[in-house]
């Protein structure tokens, strides 16, 4: 079974939504709100799209509300992958 990791999330965020100078995606960001990292809901939607394509799963747009921080996003995606048996 695949596991979605924080480093994978960081990689996707920097490729698809960009990184501002001064934002340390490599630092301890797991529990910092996406908004405080400079990402809006579109960035989280984009993250969902990337996960959908990589793992062939479907994520509802409403799921954005379940992903306020990187840690919560990783948790949500892993729960989804487990459920889908990916």
């Amino acid at each position, binding site marked *: 079974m695949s596991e979605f990791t924080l480093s994978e999330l960081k990689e996707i965020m920097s490729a698809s939504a960009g990184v*501002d*100078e001064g934002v340390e995606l490599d630092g301890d960001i797991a529990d910092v709100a996406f908004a405080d990292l400079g*990402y809006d809901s579109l*960035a989280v*939607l*984009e993250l969902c*799209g990337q996960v959908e394509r990589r793992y062939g799963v479907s994520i509802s747009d409403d799921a954005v509300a379940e992903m306020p921080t990187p840690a919560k996003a990783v948790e949500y995606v892993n729960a989804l992958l487990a459920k889908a048996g990916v």
Partner: protein
Amino acid sequence: MSTSDVVTGPVVTGIGVCAPTGIGVETHWQAVLAGKSGIGRIERFDPARYPVRYAGQVPGFSAQDRIPGRLIPQTDHGTHLGLAAAASALADAGVDPADLPEYEMAVVTSSSSGGTEFGQHEMERLYRHGPSWVGAYQSIAWFYAATTGQISIRHGMRGPCGVMCCEQAGGLDVLGQARRLVRLGARLVVSGGTDASLCPYGLVAQLSNRRLSTVDDPARAYLPFDVEASGYLPGEGGAMLIVESADGARDRGAGQGYGVIAGYAAGFDPPPGSSRPPALRRTIERALADAGVTPSDVDVVFADASGVPEDDVIEARALVETFGPGSVPVTAPKTLTGRLYGGGAALDVATALLALRHGVIPHTVGPTRLAPGCDIDLVSGEPRNTGPRTALVVARGHGGFNAALVLRRSGSD
């Protein structure tokens, strides 16, 4: 009426340029004075199979060096140029937006194409892979208003914001709108435009108007008012301008700025086949009346300079009827950049303000023999040091848009 009773128009206190003539006000101005062209073979894609292969491209632009990293994958190249130009214009005006009330700062930009390059990339993903491959940022990056929105968010400007889509006339129409907003109480307006549509999809869309030149020589393809005029070449980029009330600029110690927006008018052409005349002459006359100046007060005209022979004759005739044959210097530095659509007239205004500040009329590179019916005094060969105080900028957008703007040197009555 005493001088103190004269209502002074708003002033331009800052300019940011990202254009084929270079990045930055000084680089642009030196290129214009030297007649250094920014037109070359299209580099953003291989144009070999297209009938138009030359365009004006911004040299050495690096989004990584000029805008926040997060915004690079989220926005189109045209927005990158706009964000960079807006930041330069604010710095040039000596404004820190954090010092001003957020609801008193406005953003109005001109756009003719929206984010076509970004859009093309996402459309390719759609038809190659499927809907889930289209990025979330497509939802905002292709909008005409994307550049306005991103400037507004980046600098915390929450006053009246909008976009005007009037093709090449838009760069003047946004300044007319900026003036209106200043009169309504806006303290500062970021205005101007930077289109960038040099991708296959964007170029093919432009080709549909049949006005682009297919002459296979970058130095001879765009020759407005010339006997060999064959249409125009496209370009990317433009300029952003900071517009403030004269009082507001003085109060914050910004001085008199580059110049005053003294008059503006817009007009729309009658439909093809109509017996009514083109709207350009009336538009120019109304802009002069709005500025309270007579034709003899105008020291230089920055022409629309379409390069399409019939459009050139219409413009030359409007100028001759307004000013008399050959009685005002006319120039078109846009032959160095190509027509920049939403950014074109904004860059012309920037160039005109620099001409007023430096007292020099830049020349037009390219045209050598005026076409019959173009009885204008086209400044060519070299710049003229005539100390212009009042400039008229003319712009027309495909589809019938006409606009004229009168600028006065700061400090002249």
